[in-house]
C-alpha cells in the first residue's frame, strides 16, 4: 500500500498535468488562466503535504500536545497564494485589455488579426 500513502502527491501530479494541459490546449485566454491557477494550486498542495507531521496537531503550544505539524510550508504557501491571486488579477486585466483592443479573447482570432 506504499502508493496509496502518497495519495496527496498523486493528486498534485494529476492536477498539475491537467493544469498544464489547460494552459496549452485551449485558445481561449480565460481558460488558459484557469489552467495556470490549477497548476499553481497543485504546487501548493505539495508544500502543504510536506508540512504535515503524522499525528501532529496545529502548531500552537499547548501542554496536552507534544507533536506539531510544521507551520513553515503553510506560511510560505500563504505568500505564494497571494502571488497567484496577483498573477490571476494581472492576467485577467490583460485579457480585458486584449478584448478591448481586438474584440476577442480567442488566441487563433487574435493571431489572424495580427497577421493582417
Amino acid at each position, binding site marked *: 500500500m506504499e502508493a496509496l500513502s502518497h495519495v496527496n502527491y498523486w493528486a498534485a501530479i494529476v492536477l498539475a498535468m491537467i493544469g498544464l494541459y489547460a494552459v496549452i490546449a485551449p485558445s481561449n485566454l480565460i481558460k488558459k488562466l484557469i489552467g495556470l491557477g490549477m*497548476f499553481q494550486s497543485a504546487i501548493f498542495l505539495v*508544500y502543504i503535504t510536506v508540512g504535515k507531521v503524522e499525528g501532529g496537531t496545529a502548531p500552537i503550544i499547548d501542554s496536552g500536545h507534544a507533536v506539531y505539524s510544521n507551520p513553515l510550508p503553510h506560511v510560505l504557501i500563504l505568500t*505564494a497564494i497571494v502571488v497567484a491571486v496577483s498573477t490571476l488579477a494581472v492576467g485577467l486585466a490583460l485579457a480585458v485589455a486584449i478584448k478591448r483592443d481586438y474584440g476577442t479573447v480567442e488566441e487563433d482570432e487574435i493571431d489572424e488579426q495580427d497577421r493582417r
Partner: protein
Amino acid sequence: MIATHLPVLQVAVPLIAAPICVLLRRGSYAWIFTTVICWGLLAIAALLLDQVMSGGAISYRLGGWEPPIGIEYRLDGVNAFVLLILAGTAALMMPYARQSVEREVRPERRHLFYAIFLLALTGLLGITATGDVFNIYVFLEISSLASYVLIAQGTRRRARTASFQYLIIGTIGASLILVGVGFLYAKTGTLNIADLAVRVPALGETPAVLAAFAFITVGVLIKLALFPFHMWLPNAYAYAPSMVSAFLAATATKVGAYMLLRFVFTVFGVHFAFETMPLTEILLALSLIAVLAGSLVAVFQSDLKRLLAFSSVGQIGYLGVGIGLASVTGVTGALVHIFNHALMKGGLFLAAGTIAYRLGATDLSALHGLGRRMPFTMAAVVIGGLGLVGVPITSGFVSKWYLVQAAFEQDLWPVALFVLAGSLIALAYVGRVIEAAYFRPPPPDSEPVQEAPWAMQLSTWALIAGSVYFGLHTDLTVGIAERAATVLLAGAP
C-alpha cells in the same frame, strides 16, 4: 550606523518609494522622485561593492533574526557586482525616461508607470541581494508581475498579447522554481542558501535533489530566455515602451543569469551540477544553438527593435556558454558579458527609442538616410552594434575574448568556433542597420527630422560610452568578475 543597514535599504527603498510615487499624482513629480531614488540606489550599490571588495562577504540579518531561521541578505563579490549593474543602468536611464514616457504613456498613468518601474527594480534587486531561496521566488514574482504591466503599456495593441504570453510562460517558469525549492526544503529543512550549500551536497544523488535540480534549472532557464525557452522575449521587447525595452533588456535576463550562477554553483555545487548531472553538455548545446539561431533570425528582421530583441536571444547564448564551461575563465567571461551586454543592449534599445520618438517607427526602411539626419543617435547605434559584434576596443570584445580563451583551455575548439561564427552573423545584422542608415538615400518626400532631445541623447551616450570605456579599461570589470568567479567555483560561500 546606517552603513550596516545598506543591504536591506538597497531593496526596501524602491519598495517604499513605489507607493509614494502613486501618491504624487503627477508624472513629472514622480519622474523627479524616481530619478533621486535611482541615483540613491546606485550610491548604495557602489558603497556595498566597495565594502565587499575590501572586507569580504556581508551577511545582513533581517529583523535581527539569526540565520538560518531568519531571512539573511548575503552579499559577496557576485551579487554586489550585479546590484551595481542593476542600479547603475536604472540611474543612467532616468534622464531618458521623462520625454520617452511623456510620448508613450497617457498622462493619467505616468505616475503609476514610475511606481511599477520602481517595483520591477525592487524585485530585481531583491532576487540579487537575498540569501534565501524562497525570497528569490517572491522577488522574482514581484519583478515579473511588474514587468508584465510595464510591457502592456506599449502603444501598439500587440504589446498586450506579448505581455499575456510572457505572463503565462513566466508564471510557469517561476512555479517550477517554487516546486524545486519545495523539494529542497522537504529534504534539508532549510531555505537559507549558505545552509543549503552545506546540506545539499551531503545528500548526494537522492531522487528529490535530482528532481529539484531539474525543476529549478528549467525554471531559471525560462526566466533567462535561453533557447528553446526564449519565445516570450522577442515580442515582449519589441512592443514594450522604449524605456521598458531598454531597462528589461539590460537587467531582467541578467538577473536570470545570476540566478543560474547562484543555484548551480552555490546551492547544488560544481561537482553535483557538472559531474553528476550533464549540465555542461546541456548548457553548451542550448547556448550554441541560441547564439547561431538568435543571431541568424535577427539578420532577417525588418524592424530595429525586433532585430535587437533577437540579437539578445543570441547574446544570452554567450552567457550560457560561459556558465556551461564551468571554469574560472568561463564564468569570468559570463559575468563580464552580463555587465557589458547590459551597457550595449541598454544603449542600443535607448537609441532605438529615440528613433521611435522622432520618426514614430523603427522599421529599417524608415531608417533610410538617417545617418545624416540624426547623426549622434546613429553613431551610438553603430558603436553599440560593433560592441555586439565584438570588435576590439569595444567591451563586447573583452567578454568574447574570455569565452574563447575558456573554450581553448578545455580544448573545446568547436565552441570557440561557434562563438566566432556568432560574431560574424552579428556583423551581418549590424551591417543591415548601418546600410539602411548610411548607404540609402532618404525617401524624397520625407519631412526634415531633428536630432533627438539632449536628455535622451545623454542616457544613450552614457551607456554607449561606458561600453567603450570598459572595453579599454578592462581591469576594473574583469578584476571584479574574476574574484567573483573564483568565489563561485570555490563552492560554499
